[in-house]
């Protein structure tokens, strides 16, 4: 469980997060939603220790962020940031093998190679394995970064808008893959999503942020209703129920 308690964050005079407290459950997919600038990335960066905490505390299972050795934290959770840099001279396979760094500190074993091969398989990257990162498309690069986080083989996976740039097939495949990881390997996944349809379809738990504060949170079926979502985005949002699926409609 990730336990966030009383977290506030300011950059200069701008208050980015205001007293956020919440629990994120284990073994599930938690979708982090909210309008642009709501503070989702900031919250994720604080949870992963990328930015130092100003007030409040965050703990991941038994580890306290800010008091845990970087390596222990890297064995506990993997992060894919919203804006991934383009390191040239790096092949997709090399990038993924960096995911094994916390385990092997640069001295790969047979187990590491197995894990890298698995990551290439799962995220449909075999054909791209030997391409350079600056010679693949944005979506392909994004998948490579997710595969690297997967190769890190941690209990927690934090992904900031991983569906950006992904086509329909790969977006659905990625969500299905994450779902399988949560079900079969009991991984806990926190994912920032913009397309509410993916949130409704795949997330077990939803955390909604607005203006740096928690808007609502809870089990997906309970909290994703037209009223909550409309208020969250200040836009008319309708939920359309078909036989076995729920769609979020907001285009007109």
């Amino acid at each position, binding site marked *: 469980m990730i336990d966030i308690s009383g977290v506030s964050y300011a950059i200069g005079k701008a208050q980015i997060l205001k007293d956020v407290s919440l629990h994120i459950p284990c073994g599930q997919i938690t979708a982090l939603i909210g309008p642009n600038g709501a503070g989702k990335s900031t919250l994720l960066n604080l949870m992963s220790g990328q930015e130092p905490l100003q007030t409040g505390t965050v703990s991941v299972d038994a580890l306290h962020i800010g008091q845990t050795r970087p390596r222990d934290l*890297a064995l506990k959770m993997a992060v894919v940031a919203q804006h991934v840099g383009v390191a040239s001279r790096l092949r997709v396979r090399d990038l993924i093998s960096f995911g094994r760094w916390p385990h092997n500190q640069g001295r790969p074993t047979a187990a590491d190679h197995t894990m890298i091969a698995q990551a290439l398989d799962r995220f449909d990257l075999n054909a791209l394995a030997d391409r350079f990162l600056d010679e693949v498309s944005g979506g392909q690069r994004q998948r490579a970064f997710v595969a690297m986080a997967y190769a890190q083989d941690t209990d927690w996976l934090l992904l900031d808008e991983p569906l950006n740039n992904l086509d329909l097939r790969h977006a659905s495949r990625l969500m299905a893959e994450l779902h399988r990881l949560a079900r079969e390997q009991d991984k806990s996944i926190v994912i920032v999503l913009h397309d509410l349809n993916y949130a409704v379809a795949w997330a077990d738990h939803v955390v909604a942020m607005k203006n740096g504060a928690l808007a609502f949170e809870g089990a997906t079926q309970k909290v994703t209703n037209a009223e909550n979502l409309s208020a969250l985005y200040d836009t008319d949002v309708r939920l359309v129920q078909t036989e076995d699926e729920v769609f979020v409609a907001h285009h007109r």
Partner: protein
Amino acid sequence: MPDRWFLILLGALVAASALFLTWGLSTRIWFILELRLVKLAGLITVGIAVGIATMLFQTLSGNRILTPAIMGFDALFLLVQTSLVFFIGGFGFVQLPGPVVFGINTAVMMVAAVTLFGALLHNNRRDIQLMILVGVIFGLLFRSLTSFMQRLIDPSEFAIVQGTMFAQFGGINRVELLTSVCLLLPLLVWIWRQCPVLDTMALGRDPARSLGVPYDGLQFRLLCAIAALVSIATALVGPITFLGLLVSSLTYSLMRSHRHALLLPTSAAMAALILVFGQTVFEQVLDLQSTLSIVIEFAGGLLFLFLLARGKLQ
């Protein structure tokens, strides 16, 4: 097979060294050979220091156009050297043994470099335009302060700092060379052991940190290492602004690898080769004294402008 290029460069370096030692050798063979050996060792030491310092700095700053020399590291070393003579010269500083003076210079240089450049790398890692601007301003500032102080310096002390404003491959001092090599060897061992972690640092600060790399601490130590390498090169031959850029561009274009275990030795061999080969051709074969540094600066400067114009900054 990227190792191939390293072996080719190494072979070329050995050939160039042999040529350098033996070209036109007729009278007083042992005497001249000894002189040339010292010079050769100096050139190779400088090459290794410049090549490696440049690659390390480019990994830390996440781009391929900025080098320690362009950012004003060399100028900073000259400033430190001159101000030490200026401020404490009167207290017998200049009478201290050469290695001690060099050690103090290097230590002060490390502190100054980490203070000035550490903050810059930390806050604006990806803002290359700003870094270039800061580098140009630092370079100008350090150089003007240095020449200002040199004018005020006591003439007897001036001899110490004189002639260090431009690169000279002619007179390499034996004591300085020995001191430099003694500092360089342990540095190289340490840097060699950082190669795998340098590969992860090249991903950038945030990704490296999320892999559990203690980035900030390592960056601090690597900046110290860069400062020491620049001190070695600058103390031996003076500032060479564009050699590093020339070397790193050639290295990157020869090998598309991200592995520092390959990149660092290759750039070191490349830099040493340029210096030794250039010195052989320009000063022994063509008998054009002290033109090598001009040629390097000219070629490197053109390359710098070309890279800037192409906007290929990453």
